[in-house]
């Protein structure tokens, strides 16, 4: 088995990057970017970053939280909240079933509370293998509750964004989650609380146009696709090919929309320092 990369990250169906199970099956694989041979356990030890070219592979949401949480501190909220086919939308039930099997999660976001570098935070992370991290009513509700909880506790929120956008199969109920989450972010912010969001590959559509872009500090992993419209839609609209690097993290940094690009292996230390700087009492 080889690493498989779709032509466009948003067009991928199901699993678009190696999961842990792929790697267990196969002991040595060439890096999609630099082609150097990677041992399976090596990649996992390296937090799914190629040790030679630093290409960042997909990492599942649960691993991301465990990567930044102090050992044993993660307490998950609403783990079993599952979506219903509210609009009786065609093929949605089947898609949900496939997504559950692929991801072992009940929807596209994992939320909870944990301690990062000794500081208690509320946390969320979005899962690509659950319908491309799309936001429907469950994701919107869980993220809203996370900010409401953090507001009540007066603690920061750290979020890992990843999404193909609002979930079409829940129609306008999905679109309204953008307004709902944004309202919760604003109330948390107005009370003087910190929100840090890390944008991962890809962060697009309704998630970009809501809570992902509303953080006090916006970080990104290298080379992540970050934008409102997906590149394919833009190419269709303007009938031109997009320049390479368009909408990638480095482009967003250059255009002033993110604060910093932070390599995965540095993220915990970086977040810890930021949290400490915001809890310092003069």
């Amino acid at each position, binding site marked *: 088995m080889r690493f498989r990369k779709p032509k466009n990250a948003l067009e991928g169906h199901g699993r678009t990057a190696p999961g842990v199970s792929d790697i267990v099956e196969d002991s040595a694989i060439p890096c999609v970017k630099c082609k150097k041979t990677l041992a399976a356990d090596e990649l996992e030890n390296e937090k799914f970053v190629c040790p030679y070219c630093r290409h960042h592979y997909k990492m599942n949401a649960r691993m991301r939280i465990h990567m930044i949480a102090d050992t044993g501190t993660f307490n998950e909220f609403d783990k079993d909240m599952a979506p219903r086919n*509210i*609009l009786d*939308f*065609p*093929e949605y039930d089947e898609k949900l079933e496939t997504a559950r099997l692929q991801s072992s999660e009940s929807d596209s976001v994992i939320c909870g509370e944990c301690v990062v570098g000794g500081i208690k935070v509320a946390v969320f992370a979005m899962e690509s293998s659950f319908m491309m991290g799309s936001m*429907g*009513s*469950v994701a*919107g*509700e869980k993220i*809203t509750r996370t900010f409401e909880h953090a507001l009540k506790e007066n603690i920061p929120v750290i979020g890992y964004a990843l999404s193909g956008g*609002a979930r*079409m199969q*829940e*129609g*306008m*109920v*999905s*679109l*309204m*989650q*953008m*307004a*709902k989450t*944004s*309202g*919760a*972010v*604003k*109330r948390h*912010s*107005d009370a003087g609380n910190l929100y840090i969001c890390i944008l991962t590959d890809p962060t*697009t*559509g*309704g998630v*970009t*146009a*809501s*809570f*992902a*872009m*509303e953080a006090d500090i916006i970080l990104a992993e290298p080379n992540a696709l970050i*934008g*409102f*419209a997906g590149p394919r*839609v*833009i190419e269709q*609209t*303007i009938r031109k090919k*997009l320049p390479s690097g*368009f*909408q990638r993290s480095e482009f967003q940094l250059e*255009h*002033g*929309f993110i604060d910093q690009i932070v390599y995965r292996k540095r993220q915990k230390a970086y977040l810890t320092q930021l949290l400490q700087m915001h809890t310092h009492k003069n």
Partner: protein
Amino acid sequence: MTAYERVTAARDKKRSTSLDFINGIFDDFLEMHGDRRFADDKAIITGIAYLNNIPVTVIGIEKGHSIRERSMRNFGSSHPEGYRKALRQMKLAEKFNRPVICFVDTSGAYCGIGAEERGQGQAIAENLMEMSTLKTPIISIIIGEGGSGGALGLAVANEVWMLENATYSVISPEGCASILWKDSAKAPEAAECLKLTAQDLLELKIIDKIIAEGDLLIDGLRSQLVTSLEMYSKMKTEELTDHRYNRFREIGN
């Protein structure tokens, strides 16, 4: 009418645009231009007018009628500066205690290189966040097409109304059909699935009121705006912003 017939009606080039409503409903409209950061986006019109002798802030996504005007308005698809211009006017409305009335009619926020370079997603996100706590009443009316995030960027309101043949959708029926069935010609079927008509959205509690179309449309809208704004103007600031928060908080919980 089928859902797709309403989609067609909502897109009809002869349909009244925001400017028609602004000129019909309000008196002495003064247009205000520019986002003070980059440009004046002609797809969004903003300004101050009287509603029954009360000054109000009016914002509308404008598609235009003639070919020349439609092109000048970018067919009602705003760039980030349109959302930023609207937000600037909303902040002034808050400062001077004016209610805000938004007219929404767009196939969506513009998808292009400049729009992405200048942060289309960030501009819409900021509007959603700021509108959620704006300390003045907001009423948004979907008059034609309510195209996804580009429409929502002006529709975080205390009440969202829809004209009876307007549509409001997370994705265009064509886009939905090409994702679902790899065939955009199946847009009529997709339109049914998306529940994008005023009647569907009233039942789902996404909108608050359906406005009947016809000869009395303008007069009817004016009197309903007057009545509603009288009610919201009596609310205390916190009550008003809580009302808006809870309106969206209850969707999909």
